[in-house]
Every structure is written in C-alpha cells, then in structure tokens.
C-alpha cells in the first residue's frame, strides 16, 4: 500500500512523524502520528531524594519547565502532608500564569502564526518566524514582546527564564519584594494591549480558515480539565472533571490517586508516546481532549472582566461545547488575556508580599500526587518513596498523552480532507502538520524524539512505481 511519510513534523515541540496510507485509488486509508523517542524520567529518578524532584523533573521540558516544577512540588507537598502558606500558593499561581502566557505566545506567534500570516500553502523556506519578522514586523515584534513579558515574570520570581528554581516542596524559597512586584505590574498594560490586538486580528481571520475549522480534529469528544466549586477557570487548585461534548459532567471530584481509576494508558507498537483514555469507556470510545479548548469548555466563567467578555463571544461559536481543534489557537489567546488579568489581581493583593512562604516537614506519606493545568493541559506527577525519602517509582501523565487519540484522529480527518493522492503538494502536507500544531504538542514532556530524517514523500502506484515525489 502506498505510504506518505512526513518526517519530521516541524514547528512543534519535540520530534515526530506522520505516516499516511493510501489505497489503490489514491484515497487516504489511515494515518498515524508517531513519536520517536523516550527518555525514561519515570525510571531515571529512582533512588534519588524526593526533594530533588522539582529541579530534576523541570528538565522534562524547556518550554514548560515551570509546569513540571509546580506539579512536582505539589506531589512533594503531598508526600510531606503540608498545607502550604497562602502567600506561597498565590506566588505559585503567578508562576503558573506566567508560564501559560509565555508558552501560548510561543505557540501562537512563533510556531503557528507563519501558517496564518504567510499562508498554509506559502513558500516553506519563508514560512517561519523569521519570515514573519521580514513580512509582518509589527506582528513579530508584538509576539516577541508578549512572550518576553511571560518569561520576564518567570525570571523575576524564579531567577531565570528557562529552568527557574524558587518553587520548592512546601512553598517557595523566599518572599516577593515590592520592587519586583512593581516591575511586573508596570509591564501589564502593554501585554494586555498586545493580546487584545492579536485576538481582534485572529477573530477577523477565522472566516478565511473555514476549511481548516471544519476539518481540524473537529468531532465530539469528552474534555478533561481542572474544576472547582466556583466553576471559574482553574489552573492550580481544584479537582479533575470529565465532561462530554454536550457539557454534561461524566466524572467529577477526581483527586490524588483517584486518577488511576479514570485514566488508562495504552502502549502503541509504533510510537513512544502512550495513548491515554477514559478508563470506564475503554481505549476506543474513551477519547477526550485537554488544554485550552477543554478548559474554556469546562469553566462557566473566566473570573476576570476582559477574558469573560471574550469567553462569552467564544461560546457563541457553537451551541454546546466548541469542538473544532482549530479553535485551540483562539482559546490560547483568551487564556493569555485571562492569565495577565489574574496576575494583576494577585500582584495587587497586599498579601502577595507576605513573608511566610514555606512550610517545612519531613516525609509523612509514602505516596504523593501533584495535579496542575499546564499550558497544554492536565499534568499529573505521581511519586512513591521508601522510608528514607528516596524515590521508588514515578509516573507522569502529560497533556500530549491525553490528546494522543484526538491528535491521531485529527491527522486522519485532515489527511482525508486535504491529501489527494493523485498529485501531492506541500500545502496539503503542511495542513497535516498544522492540525498537530493546533494541539501544541509537547513531545519532550512525555517522551522525546530524534528521528529527523529527510522528508521524502513518495506516491507509489499499486505495482510500486513512483508516481509522484515531494522532497524538501
């Protein structure tokens, strides 16, 4: 059977490839998303003190190190059985929001904007952030500034932009200073201006991406995200909830090790990324999505004024939940707006300068779970220690794993819509990559790939002759 291979998928985090099987008529039969390396963090941490985990686990990912730092520290809080001081919790929330801001800005402006601005079918040599700099300098400058804002908050609080420290088991290592707070607050109006302007621009573009909206992983699934009593947007505190495509609650109040009753992990023979599924429904029907789209479908309100206005408009896209994964981009911008507004509220709270920021304790539990909403979705760190506080085993369930079923199904949907086997064009294949980009996968997070083989798409006839060939 003729096979198209796209390798590597570019402008995403980590390495992967896609294979598309065609039938004898040149129609797409099946398509698979393969992740091609694993680093084994679940094993390499074995025997190390649990207090080392936040710094070690942050190295899972250079885009969202703070998410792993936070989830890991929460798991350690659980092992110590401490309730961290309120100021510490607020400071951690600011870090999480800054992380969401910079990561979403990277996804939108650096990785996906080249498709929106220069076009899905544009010259692949120019279709990147430097191409955007050359042709749309103001947009590029805005994107750089917005990501820089998020990174600066992380640097101000955590000491550096990539792999910051500061967040520790029990809280944070030292209090925030008034000058640091003021420096961040001073940058907020400009960050909000950029986000609002990007939102306005993107909303104006949606009409020209009708075909992508229709075919980019657009199907009913369940959604998983963090929930709380207020039903406001929640990224740090709360429990896990599954809802269906009609917004009915399917499972609720999932905390600690409960996740194991609801989330199953299935291995694949052709990908280092495991597939996560809703256990009660099994690996076929148990498909669900996480991340910005899931969170905006889940919450009833954002909880900040400007983001709430945007959320109301977003909700009008569809009658129940918003189902097209193309709208992940839109949801990401709304989440940036929310994050900046929420940071502002937290920083204006006088308690944020409180001096009590860390709880101290020895291990009191042999097991701990930390759950967090990372930029790409629900992140779970789960550790078990021995009586000396050394790690016996660890399991991490990561956003891209949750989305693996939907990404695979989305790749097939896009391939069927756009890849016509008679004559291959690079724009067709770029759309297959673009649906993956919509999910903003982070492959370093659960596995890590290396297979950067040259792209060589061959279209073979039934008797194996090369009918068409695309090389980049």
């Amino acid at each position, binding site marked *: 059977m003729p096979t198209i291979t796209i390798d590597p998928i570019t402008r995403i985090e980590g390495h992967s490839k896609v294979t598309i099987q065609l039938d004898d008529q040149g129609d797409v039969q099946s398509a*698979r998303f393969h992740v091609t390396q694993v680093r084994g963090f679940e094993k390499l941490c074995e025997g190390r003190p649990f207090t080392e985990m936040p710094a070690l686990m942050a190295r899972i990912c250079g885009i969202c190190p703070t998410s792993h730092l936070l989830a890991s520290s929460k798991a350690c809080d659980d092992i110590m059985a401490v309730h961290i001081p309120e100021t510490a919790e607020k400071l951690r929330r600011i870090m999480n929001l800054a992380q969401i801001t910079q990561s979403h800005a990277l996804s939108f402006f650096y990785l996906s904007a080249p498709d929106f601005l220069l076009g899905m079918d544009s010259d692949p040599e120019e279709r990147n952030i430097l191409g955007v700099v050359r042709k749309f300098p103001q947009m590029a400058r805005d994107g750089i500034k917005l990501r820089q804002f998020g990174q600066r908050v992380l640097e101000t609080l955590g000491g*550096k932009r990539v792999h910051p420290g500061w967040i520790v088991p029990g809280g944070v290592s030292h209090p925030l200073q008034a000058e640091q707070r003021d420096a961040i607050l001073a940058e907020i109006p400009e960050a909000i201006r950029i986000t609002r302007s990007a939102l306005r621009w993107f909303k104006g573009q949606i009409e020209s991406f009708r075909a992508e909206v229709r075919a980019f992983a657009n199907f009913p699934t369940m959604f998983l995200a963090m929930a709380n009593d207020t039903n406001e947007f929640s990224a740090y505190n709360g429990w896990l909830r599954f809802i269906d495509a009609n917004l009915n609650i399917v499972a609720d109040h999932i905390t600690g090790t409960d996740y194991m009753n609801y989330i199953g992990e299935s*291995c694949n023979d052709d990908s280092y990324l495991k597939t996560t599924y809703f256990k009660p429904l099994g690996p076929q029907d148990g498909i669900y999505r996480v991340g910005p789209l899931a969170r905006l479908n889940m919450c009833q309100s954002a909880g900040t004024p400007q983001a709430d206005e945007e959320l109301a408009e977003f909700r009008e896209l569809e009658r129940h939940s918003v189902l097209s994964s193309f709208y992940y981009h839109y949801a990401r911008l709304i989440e940036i707006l929310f994050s900046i507004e929420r940071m502002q509220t937290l920083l204006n709270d006088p308690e944020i300068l409180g001096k009590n920021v860390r709880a101290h304790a020895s291990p009191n539990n042999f097991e701990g779970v930390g759950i967090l909403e990372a930029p790409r979705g629900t992140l779970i760190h789960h550790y078990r220690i021995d009586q000396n506080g050394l790690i016996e085993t660890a399991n991490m369930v990561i956003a891209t794993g949750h989305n693996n079923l939907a990404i695979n199904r989305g790749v097939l949907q896009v391939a069927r819509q756009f890849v016509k086997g008679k004559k291959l064009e690079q724009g067709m294949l770029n759309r297959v990559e673009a649906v993956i980009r919509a999910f903003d996968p982070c492959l370093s997070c659960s596995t890590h790939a290396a297979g950067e083989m040259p792209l060589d798409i061959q279209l073979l006839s039934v008797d194996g002759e090369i009918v068409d060939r695309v090389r980049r």
Partner: protein
Amino acid sequence: MTKAKTTKARIATVWLDGCSGCHMSLLDIDERLILLADKIDLVYSPLVDAKDFPENVDVTLVEGSISTDEDLHKIKLIRKNTKVLLSLGDCAVTGNIPSMRTVFPLAEVMDRVYHENATINRQVPTKVVPTLLERVMPLHEVVDVDVYLPGCPPSADNIFMAISELLEGRMPELTLTARFGA
C-alpha cells in the same frame, strides 16, 4: 537563489535528546532576533520547515545528547555538512539529564515505562521508531566539536554573543561567562 540570500550566513539549529530549553533560551534573545533576521538564513531548525539537513552550513548549534541510532546518524551528517559545530548546553556537552538513564539497563527503563506504568497493550514500541542506545553520549564522543557552550540552559546573552562572534568570523571566548548548570 537571490544575490541577497547568498551573502547571509547559513545557520542551522538542531535538537537531539534534550528538552528544547536551549532553543527557548535562543529565542530569549527577544528583539535581537529581528537583527539576526537580516544577517542569517536559518536553513534548518525545528523552528523552520526544512526537512533535509542541507549542505554547506556555516554554523550549526546542536542541543541535546546522542541517545538513539538516528541521533548517531544525524550528528555525523551534521558534522560532514557544517563548518563550525557548536555544542549547545549541558546535555550536548556532558550528556547531563538524558544520560542519567544509563545507570540502569535499558530493558529496565523500558519496563518501567511500557509495562509497570501502562494499563493495557503492554509492549515496548519497535515499529517505525528509532532504537535507543544502551548508553547516552555527549556530542564530542562521536564527532569533533568546535565550540562548547555549557549551561542548563546557556543564557540568551551567551548564545547571542557566540552567534555574533561566529558571524564576525571570530571564535567566541566563553570561558569567563558560561558555566555548567544555572
């Protein structure tokens, strides 16, 4: 190829077995990226859509260590096609975190991930995916490296300084400003 293009330096960036943090630190040069856009052609990178590692690359920055058979193949190709190879960050320079798995037999690492921590279809992937090496290696164990820039990640200032110096045709002096870890 236009005349303007040929006068620009041909730069590539690659990540092997790392976390992408060094690439994020590269992006942390912020507005200086706009300066670079005029001076370089980014001919290959996870940030651009080129799929083939090209020939005649002036400078390649490589993040991450060598962990699979494909990494091995790749780094040799990069070396062959690159004038100046820069080992970017602690994983490339020492093996760092990825090499921590080397203290366990590979079979035990795979067993943890694909048997103990899986619910169904327990199996180690073998189709389509590259094969992991028993031992993770830094770049210089396999190829000659011209410039070492340690750090986890190296700071944006150091990365920008290294690129700027190389664009001017000088070897960057990094011993005073770069260090391992932070």
